[in-house]
């Protein structure tokens, strides 16, 4: 019996050789991992990592200090060695993510050219988190870096399905709010897509990219076996009168928690930024005034601040702003350590400016905050909360600002003075 012709594979002979398959799998894995290693370096290199300088002294830090360090370095922009950064593993990753979210300042006055340079949208109420899909799984992390969910999704490489669209390890990173009532991730920003960084892109570009890319993946489909949670985009408006009106009083499929304003030209910047702002009142949010640890609104304004070694209590801004201090005795008495986050009540609610700085006067220690809390309050939050109790910035003020802008096009925007 003659053998079959060279190129003719008999149908009833094993078509596969597992050895060949092992060889191919090994080669494919190597190629994927190479492109993964290079993409990680690229991602990080393209100043994805707007990290602060590496701690100059001891790299091993206590968990408690970790948080303060993270908050303290949020806004510092200097290049970390990308290759070293690409090697982040385990807890380092957690720490890294804790520093990556862009945190809006609270709107205490109306920025100029609101209608020309800004977007507005109603902010979903829920847990702010980073969602990362890669290597066949999707992980959401809260602001403090801890994991909220680990699940399969239709995001790129977000589930172990036969997705052929590139190396399985390339990241996508979304900035989301997880909205409990309908178990939906509302995507408010896109940071990385298939390994390509959008950090250095304007909000205008990021939102455009977000809207065109997310729908391609089927991430907004209803949940299924390989897609545990739905991802929805939030409707974003130009911040003109119509847009503001729609955001403020329009119907949305989620519980609103204030309005978010994004400057169109701003890049995604980790840490606090005045180029993204949050504002709320009783109409568009259930939680205008901060609650205490028991969920009650305290009679006096309470503030969470970080204890420094000179006894000063500071905000999480960069550089930190000292808003008061605790005496050494009190520190010793209550067993506080440097870097602890403490909750204090403002006894005398008349605000004073001392040497151009806000001074809260005598502070009453309420207690330590619980461990999950990663950051102290920001300066703008303290101001906003104070204003909310006494002389809030009203929706009418925002409307007036937009109207005045459109009537006198070339003028500087009005400053809305605080009257506290």
């Amino acid at each position, binding site marked *: 019996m*003659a053998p079959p012709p060279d190129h003719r594979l008999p149908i009833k002979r094993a078509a596969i050789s597992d*050895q060949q398959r*092992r060889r191919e799998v090994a080669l494919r894995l190597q190629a994927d991992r190479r492109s993964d290693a290079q993409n990680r370096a*690229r991602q990080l290199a393209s100043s994805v990592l707007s990290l602060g300088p590496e701690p100059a002294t001891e790299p091993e830090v206590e968990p408690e200090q970790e948080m303060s360090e993270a908050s303290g370095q949020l806004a510092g922009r200097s290049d970390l*060695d990308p290759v070293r950064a690409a090697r982040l593993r385990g807890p380092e990753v957690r720490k890294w993510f804790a520093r990556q979210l862009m945190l809006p300042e609270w709107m205490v006055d109306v920025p100029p050219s609101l209608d020309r340079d800004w977007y507005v949208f109603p902010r979903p109420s829920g847990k702010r988190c980073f969602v990362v899909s890669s290597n066949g799984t999707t992980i959401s992390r809260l602001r403090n870096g801890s994991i909220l969910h680990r699940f399969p999704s239709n995001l790129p490489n977000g589930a172990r*399905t036969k997705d052929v669209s*590139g190396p399985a390890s390339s990241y996508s990173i979304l900035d989301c709010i997880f909205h409990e009532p309908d178990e939906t991730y509302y995507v408010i920003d896109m940071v990385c897509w298939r390994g*390509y960084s959008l950090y250095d*892109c304007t909000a205008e570009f990021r939102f455009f990219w977000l809207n065109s890319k997310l729908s391609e993946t089927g991430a907004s489909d209803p949940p299924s076996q390989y897609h545990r949670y739905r991802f929805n985009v939030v409707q974003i408006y130009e911040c003109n009168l119509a847009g503001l009106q729609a955001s403020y009083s329009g119907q949305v499929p989620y519980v609103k928690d204030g309005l978010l304003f994004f400057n169109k030209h701003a890049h995604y910047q980790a840490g606090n930024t005045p180029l993204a702002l949050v504002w709320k009142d009783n109409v568009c949010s259930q939680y205008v005034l901060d609650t205490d640890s028991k969920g009650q609104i305290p009679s006096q304004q309470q503030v969470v601040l970080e204890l420094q070694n000179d006894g000063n209590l500071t905000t999480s801004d960069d550089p930190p702003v000292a808003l008061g201090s605790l005496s050494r005795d009190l520190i010793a008495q209550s067993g506080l350590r440097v870097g602890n986050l403490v909750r204090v009540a403002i006894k005398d609610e008349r605000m004073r400016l001392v040497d151009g700085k806000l001074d809260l006067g005598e502070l009453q220690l309420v207690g330590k905050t619980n461990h999950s809390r990663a950051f102290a309050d920001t300066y703008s939050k303290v101001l906003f909360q104070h204003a909310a109790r006494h002389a809030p910035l009203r929706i009418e003020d925002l409307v007036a600002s937009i109207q005045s802008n459109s009537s006198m096009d070339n003028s500087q925007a009005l400053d809305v003075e605080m009257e506290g």
Partner: protein
Amino acid sequence: MALEVTQILLNAQSIDAATRNHAEESLKQIQEQNLPAFLLSLSAELANNNKPIESRKLAGLILKNALDAKELHRKNDLAQRWLSLDLATKTQIKTSLLQTFSSPVSDARSTAAQVIAKVAGIELPHNQWPELIGSLLSNIHQVETHVKQATLETLGYVCEEVDPQVVDQEQVNRILTAVVQGMNATETSSDVRLAATRALYNALGFAQANFTNDMERDYIMRVVCEATQSSDVKIRQAAFECLVAISSTYYEKLAPYMQDIFNITSKAVREDEEPVALQAIEFWSSICDEEIDILDDYRSEYTGDSDVPCFYFIKQALPALVPMLLETLLKQEEDQDQDEGAWNIAMAGGTCLGLVARTVGDEIVPLVMPFIEENISKPDWRGREAATYAFGSILDGPSPGKLAPIVNVALNFMLAALSRDPNNHVKDTTAWTLGRIFEFLHGAAVETSVITQENCQQILTVLLQSMKDVPNVAEKACGALYFLAQGYEDEGSVSPLTPFFQDIFQMLLFVTHREDATESNLRTSAYEALNEVVRCSNDETAPIVMQLIPVIMLELHQTVEAQKLTSDERDKQNDLQGLLCGCLQVIIQKMGSIEGSKYAFMQYADQIMDLLLKVFASRNATVHEEAMLAIGALAYTAGPNFAKYMPQFYQYLEMGLQNFEEYQICAITVGVVGDLCRALEDKILPYCDGIMTQLLKNLSSNQLHRSVKPPIFSCFGDIALAIGENFEKYLLYAMPMLQSAAELSAHAVSQDDEMLEYTNQLRNGILEAYSGILQGFKSSPKTQALVPYAAHVLQFIDTMYGGREMDDAVMKSALGVLGDLADTLGSHVGPLISQSSSSKDLIEECMVYDDPLIRESAEWAKLAINRAVSG
């Protein structure tokens, strides 16, 4: 000057080993001392009718081997050596060769024909020996048939050796005229007719122009078709071989002839002798190949069309073609399932039926079903086997929606047949068909699998039971399990296989220990199935896989310890070691990828490494390759902890990198260096001098198989990315190599697809090297060291862009390098990049590319460059 070599040549074929060795030694000496004289003597020996045929044939063979070799570099060396001989010698040798044509001894003529073709293969591309074809054709009108026959044979060999481009059309016309005339029915000598038909087979590639001329094509086709009706079986077979070659080379010209060809082939399939019938079936298989390719092109997202239109010959022939093929299935041979290389009408018919199913899809189903229903319960095993075979053959092609209802009905019947049919052939084919069902109608890619939680258990019970059957049936059952498991690879924790893991492993291990496990490839299939089941394990079943590790290690240990084996035992031992290392590799990969099992797995790492190092004592290539792959997987899983194994492992790594002969080992080892870089990162530094030296040596060698070069370049990138600025000391050596390879590959003119693919692999490797190096130096104070190379890198991309032959992977890598250049060197290269218009064009072009990955790479490169230019 000719030497007396007859006796030496005869001695070289002596049955006495000492005499033989001595003669071979003498031949070698003469060759080394005086090559021209040696070659002259051989050609004189071949031409001399007074010499014994044995010495003449060997003289010709040695001559042929002095002109050509399989390995490319050796082939080139030999060609150069021939070209550099003095003209007088070459002319004399060629004259002797042409003289041999008139020899009455057919073996001498035939040998001379082959040698002439080799010389022609070297000389014609250099415009030497232009008179060859003319002088051959002048023989064609010789009255002596043996000269005619030798001439035609030589023309055939020359066409086989020489590229069509080096022969001008006028000569082609003369060759074809002579060949086709020789094939004509009016030719009375069947030797001449056979030689002509075989020559046409080789000359078809030269006939492009002639096939576009209707009259000439009609003539050639008529003569070929007539030759299929010759009374000589060899001529009929050779004529059908021509038809097969025409079907792939001139598919688009076939329409006017298809009706006649169908009649000819179907008569041959039904009535002619087997070698002829097989070629007749092959014609239809070949048409299927063409149409499958064209239809694939039609469906392809990016091109959307094909150069050649589909004529749907198969679709049109379907109502007559399918019954003809089904008839062949009933012509099985008694022992075909025991014979690995068996090929007969039934097997060729089933293979063709499978291709027809892939060509036409759903339409084949109603044509095959009546045959299956009629035969599946016949008392004669041939009916039952043919029906099952027909069913198995059409499972790839038709839509799952069309097949699923039939499979749902058939499944129970199949399972019963596999357990109870009295005939081994039927069981063999049934198990194979089940495997095809699992392969094509089950798994994540299929919308509704025919396998459910409920029938899965029943299927497994039957398959595991059949693994105790005769070896060929057990082997097919293992194959079926392989595909069943493959369908669950992406299933996560809900896999219905979960409750049966223990039973499956137990049975498969039992099979590997069967006395007769070496028959019918059974042991290999059992390990392959085992690997596949391991691949679809999950959090829940990982502990059971973990129990497998000591078992496999023990087996491997026993093979390592085994002493004093016969060569047959040694072979079997090597096979087994290869399988065990392969199995370990799969387990390591899987356990390393399951977060919960990684730690527990690492407990075994020391022992596994120890064993694998011992395995390197084996001299077998496959075993080395498997062990190397397992170590690569272990390195990736162990990460920086792998550093502790490096001192012992390093020597084997170096050995692998030095293995030129078994280049696949070299390639795999280069890949493992990449794994090590990613695992060890800067801890690989102490070994880099050695590794880099070896890699650089490999690149400068012309003996290393070319396929290893692209991965070596990529590996430079891996090393640079791992050790960062420490790569600086290698720049001096690596960069010039990259540059010269870049230059070559940028300007490479690719004559065929294979060469084009290789060129692109090379380019991709070079680009990956540049990316790794650039990224490794990012933020280093030594970045400056790279600035001088930037212009060259840009020029490389410029040239490739100009050549327009980059494939998608190269384009993506090129975009990456552009971004990396900008990112690492910033303002140093900003102006340089802005000046490069093709970089800009490349990026702009890719921004609107269909492939989203390329589009996004372009976006990224643009961003990085904008930053470099503005900052």
